């Protein structure tokens, strides 16, 4: 399957898949908007400003972190190289920009997050396909019969595990009948995604390890899971009070 993705044409297939999922996710989020009393324009603006924040923030933070390299060639700041990019900084900037825009437009936070949840769930599917296309986020070696040959070893097909998990999570979100209290869709999505990451990271062959061989992504996923469970409990309590 990976060989199929890698064959003849050279454009960055993983990026094309991500962009396609962004477009599809946005269309799906728009379809559900009437539930959350948020205008199509407001939703599109959140996405556009966040995307702009993602692109500019990723480049600016990369430049700031590597200032000495850019003092020798300042024009590189405007290079079209996508590798001159800080993905974590870009993500943080996008979230901040989206949040500030929402606050300025007085958009309800939880309802906005619920409205964006189909987009997040579709992006997660796109991301797993993108990993499959690029051969990244690969698994550790295995003897299991469903192992795939990748990077000169038979490995857990972690990209497929990720794809299956993201499809199931999307199904949970999309076909959910109850949509209250406000914020519950988003929190359910975040909890399921964190749970899936916590479980599937164990099969990865490229985990970032910390003290004692602990996998950093699992620790972060566990924290996110704990926060979302706590937040959903609070939302439920608040709803009962009102």
């Amino acid at each position: 399957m990976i060989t199929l993705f890698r064959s003849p044409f050279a454009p960055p297939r993983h990026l094309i898949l991500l962009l396609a999922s962004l477009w599809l996710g946005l269309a799906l989020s728009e379809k559900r908007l009437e539930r959350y009393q948020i205008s199509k324009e407001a939703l599109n603006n959140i996405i556009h400003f966040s995307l702009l924040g993602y692109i500019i923030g990723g480049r600016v933070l990369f430049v700031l972190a590597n200032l000495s390299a850019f003092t020798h060639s300042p024009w590189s700041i405007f290079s079209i190289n996508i590798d001159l990019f800080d993905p974590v900084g870009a993500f943080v900037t996008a979230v901040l920009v989206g949040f500030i825009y929402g606050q300025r437009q007085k958009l309800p936070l939880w309802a906005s997050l619920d409205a964006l949840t189909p987009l997040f769930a579709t992006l997660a599917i796109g991301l797993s396909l993108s990993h499959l296309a690029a051969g990244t986020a690969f698994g550790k070696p295995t003897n299991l019969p469903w192992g795939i040959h990748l990077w000169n070893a038979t490995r857990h097909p972690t990209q497929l595990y990720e794809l299956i998990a993201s499809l199931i999570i999307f199904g949970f979100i999309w076909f959910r009948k109850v949509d209250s209290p406000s914020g519950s869709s988003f929190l359910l999505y975040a909890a399921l995604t964190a749970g899936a990451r916590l479980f599937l990271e164990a099969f990865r062959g490229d985990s970032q390890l910390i003290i004692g061989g602990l996998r950093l992504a699992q620790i972060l996923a566990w924290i996110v899971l704990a926060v979302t469970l706590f937040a959903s409990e609070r939302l439920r309590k608040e709803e009962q009070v009102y």
Partner: protein
Amino acid sequence: MQHLPRRILYSVILILGFVWILFSVDKSGLSTNGKIPAPQTGFLAPDFELKTQSGETVKLSDLRGQAVLVNLWATWCPPCRAEMRSIEKVYKEYKDQGFTVLAVNMTYQDEATKIPTFVSEQNLSFPILLDETGRMANAYQMRSLPSSFFISRDGIIKEVVIGGPMAEALLRTRVEEILK
């Protein structure tokens, strides 16, 4: 009454999650362990032995202890041409710190006669290797030109850049990374 079972359920989920984290600890220290050669970040760079234009043989594993940029290129490839001057500039700047460049020409899909002109036009001083059979390109799963592999002193690929041209600042950041 409903709160208590939910709280218990959440606590059980978190405890199970924590146990799973401890169960899935990677004791090898590094998941890829640097032992399997593959053209991907975190793996041992696949070894190759190729001839230069002057007939001298260069083997990648003989350069262990040096930071190496393996750049796959062809004379007909405009982005390859566009990034060569930056590579040369960065090479001259960092070579005394143990940095070297192996520019592997995809001779099996290029015209070997054009290489000397290209090299003199670009004023290149690093070794130009010739992949006449496509074996090296195959080992590095070449998909696009140029392709660059930044290899640390212990032979591990730290970064792969597919396509180009690479900006000079990108080259500097990656070279400084593999020289650490």
